[in-house]
């Protein structure tokens, strides 16, 4: 019997959607996964019985070291405003800013985990004029720093682990926690933005069902069209890090399969793309954001070639809601 791995989960300037997504874990489901790896939730705001004074008592025991803490999971951005006071989120019943609780508890945790892009980089809460001075645990957008500072290391000597995503896929979270509980997490398992490489070394483009349209640059012109959404509809699947189209969401889903563009939600600053989300910015008709690792000259050359070679079936289906022309069947006897 392995020893139990304790997790404290706190929510601040976010929507709770990463927790809601976590409940969608399947085969095995969330509770079976946690118990199978000896992961013990000391407290979770949506799932635990304890409320009010029981919680504040636990938090004090964790802060003074009476109770050890393996992993501190934080969901939601850290709100530093107004004027650095943190008063945009005072943890209920404690009259103390959540950022102060997080600073203190992160000093006790063996591992500190940012669940979701808000806690990792600031995320949607930091969009626009960032009214609450929101940031991530160890990043402010793409800049190292954030609430805990670039030099922060948890008890086990690791920086904050950034399970970025808006929301996170349930298995990104469970597999990270399992790896931690097994004692197998180290910096080589994290990419340059400290996202777990098990999902961040993939592109959303991998496994996209619109790949044939992409190959021929047969583009969707409006949402609901079946074609590739890169040229006109703002899709960043060829640049976004994530295994969304191979791992899939809620059974058979992903953003591109659901009829909409990838908005690169695992990346810092995704919330401020510098253009309307649903429109691809272009210079001289060429999208500014080209597929990752692809030289521009080759992209332009190949795109014009493949556009010229597009089969009629692909060209027609690309601008319709459903398949208008099915693929030809080979080997049928001649009429």
């Amino acid at each position, binding site marked *: 019997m392995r020893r139990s791995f304790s997790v404290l989960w706190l*929510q601040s*300037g976010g*929507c*709770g*959607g*990463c927790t*809601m*997504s976590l*409940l*969608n874990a*399947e085969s095995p*489901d969330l*509770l*079976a996964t946690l118990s199978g790896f000896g992961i013990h939730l000391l407290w*979770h*705001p*949506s*799932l*635990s*019985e304890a*409320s*009010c*004074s*029981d*919680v504040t008592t636990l938090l004090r025991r964790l802060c003074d070291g009476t109770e050890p803490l393996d992993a501190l999971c934080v969901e939601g951005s850290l709100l530093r405003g107004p004027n650095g006071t943190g008063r*945009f*989120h*005072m*943890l*209920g*019943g404690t009259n103390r800013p959540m950022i102060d609780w997080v600073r203190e508890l992160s000093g006790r945790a063996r591992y500190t985990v940012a669940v979701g892009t808000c806690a990792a980089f600031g995320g*949607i*809460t930091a969009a*626009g004029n960032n*009214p*609450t001075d929101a940031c991530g645990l160890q990043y402010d957008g793409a800049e190292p720093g954030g609430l805990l500072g670039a030099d922060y290391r948890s008890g086990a000597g690791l920086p904050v682990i950034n399970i970025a995503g808006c*929301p996170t896929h349930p298995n990104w979270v469970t597999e990270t926690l399992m790896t931690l509980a097994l004692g197998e997490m180290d910096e080589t398992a994290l990419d340059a933005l400290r996202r777990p490489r098990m999902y961040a070394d993939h592109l959303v483009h991998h496994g996209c069902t619109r790949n044939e349209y992409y190959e021929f640059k047969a583009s969707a012109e409006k*949402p*609901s069209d079946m074609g590739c959404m890169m040229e006109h509809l703002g899709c960043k699947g060829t640049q976004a890090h994530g295994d969304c189209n191979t791992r*899939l*969401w*809620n*059974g*058979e*889903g*992903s*953003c*591109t*399969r*659901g*009829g*909409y563009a990838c*908005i690169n939600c695992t990346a810092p600053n995704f*919330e401020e793309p510098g253009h*309307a*989300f*649903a429109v691809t910015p272009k210079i001289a008709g060429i999208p500014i954001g080209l597929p990752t690792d692809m030289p521009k000259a080759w992209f332009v050359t190949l795109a014009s070639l493949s556009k010229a070679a597009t089969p009629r079936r692909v060209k027609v289906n690309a601008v319709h*809601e*459903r*398949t208008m022309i099915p693929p030809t069947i080979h080997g049928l006897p001649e009429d």
Partner: protein
Amino acid sequence: MTTLSLGPFNRVEGDLEVHLDVEDGRVAAARVNSPLFRGFEQILEGKAPTDAMVITPRICGICSVAQSMAAARALADAMGLDVPPNGELATNLILAAENVADHLSHFYLFFMPDFARDVYAGRGWHAPAAERFRALSGRATAEVIPARAAFLHLLGTLAGKWPHTLTLQPGGSSRAIETGERVRLLAIVAHFRRFLEERLFGDTLERIAALDSAAALDAWRDAASPFASDLRGFLHVADDLGLERLGRADDRFMSYGAYPCEGSPTFAQGVWIDGTRRVLDVDGIAEDLSHAWMAGPGEPLPPARGITQPDMDRADAYSWCKAPRLAGRTVEVGALARQLVDGHPLIVDLVRVSGGNVRNRVVARLLEIARTLMSMERWLRSLRAGEPYCVFGRMPADAEGAGLIEAARGSLGHWLRVHKGRISSYQIIAPTTWNFSPRDRGGTPGALEQALVGTPVDPLVDDPVSVQHIVRSFDPCMVCTVH
């Protein structure tokens, strides 16, 4: 008089703090604080109108689709779009799936675990209740989490994922459903129906939906053993603890109406005041800032002219939540209001006998699960092969729109103004903004604040459980409340 400050409340969505003045063993006054502010209305200003479809669902991870739906309706209103029948059916299905999943999460994960608490160890029902509903370890908890996840496969197909989909469009849905997929979706619903009928209800959805009076509900409860199903178990607990005498506000209810089908809502729109249904005048909605940490005038503002400007120094303020009022008065929103306004005979009778209270709110939510799932089956069968799911239009450079919909927790409104092609104003009133509003300038407390007054509280006991039942009976969503 003693004063209690309770928090952090969990098993609500987001963070919550409640202050109680206790006199002679009862709550004399309550003040509800929503302690988190994020500023979505400010974030939206200056954005392209369609960016609202990306930003607003991220207000809330549990009512994400509801936020998308309200934004889509507000944009459609500004653009003058009419959604085609398939688009209406598909978006109804997407919203209904979220609402049903939310009701289920509320009952099993948020509300029932309080009856497993040790404080009830002396009660005859405690052992079976604890075995079934104990947080994280109850048998029902272990069953419902995978059942909910399997049910949400509907949204993998219909909406790409949940939460935070972009399938919902002002003109319908961007994901057409192929004929073969429709059969798979029906299979998912059928599988979930079985879970509901075997575990939650212990009866068919049709018989639950046909219960038509308080007496019929009592007779149904007594027709099988107490824990033969989770609804029966709850009704026995509710009876023993007198939950129908707990948490009554002022019995004024509102619903914007839910799930339109070719011109008329599946659940009706209206208000319920003094025991009768009346027409809802949405022009009577205004938000009062007198007790919120918000700068602004003393006069309440209609949301189309509303402002959101934090001010920590406002005298008398004790919450980030504004105080919405309908014609100057508080209203309660949620499944109870929705089913009451729709005239469901069971809910009408329950409210006639005992008003809005902890038990009736929970019964209405479970009844709504049954009624909604039956509607979902009908909508799936009504999808028309080969017909469009979405229409498109242009946003005028200057326009206004409103999107009023029903989320799981009640009435959700978005009010949008576009100037020179950008969002110049975006105001949101969420269900829990109504239910957990602070006092207004006349000193009138919000629905929860009223519902807590008179609650028996032992001042020597930390965190009185009766208060927790009342708070959670509203199924609050605090992240939506302030947004």
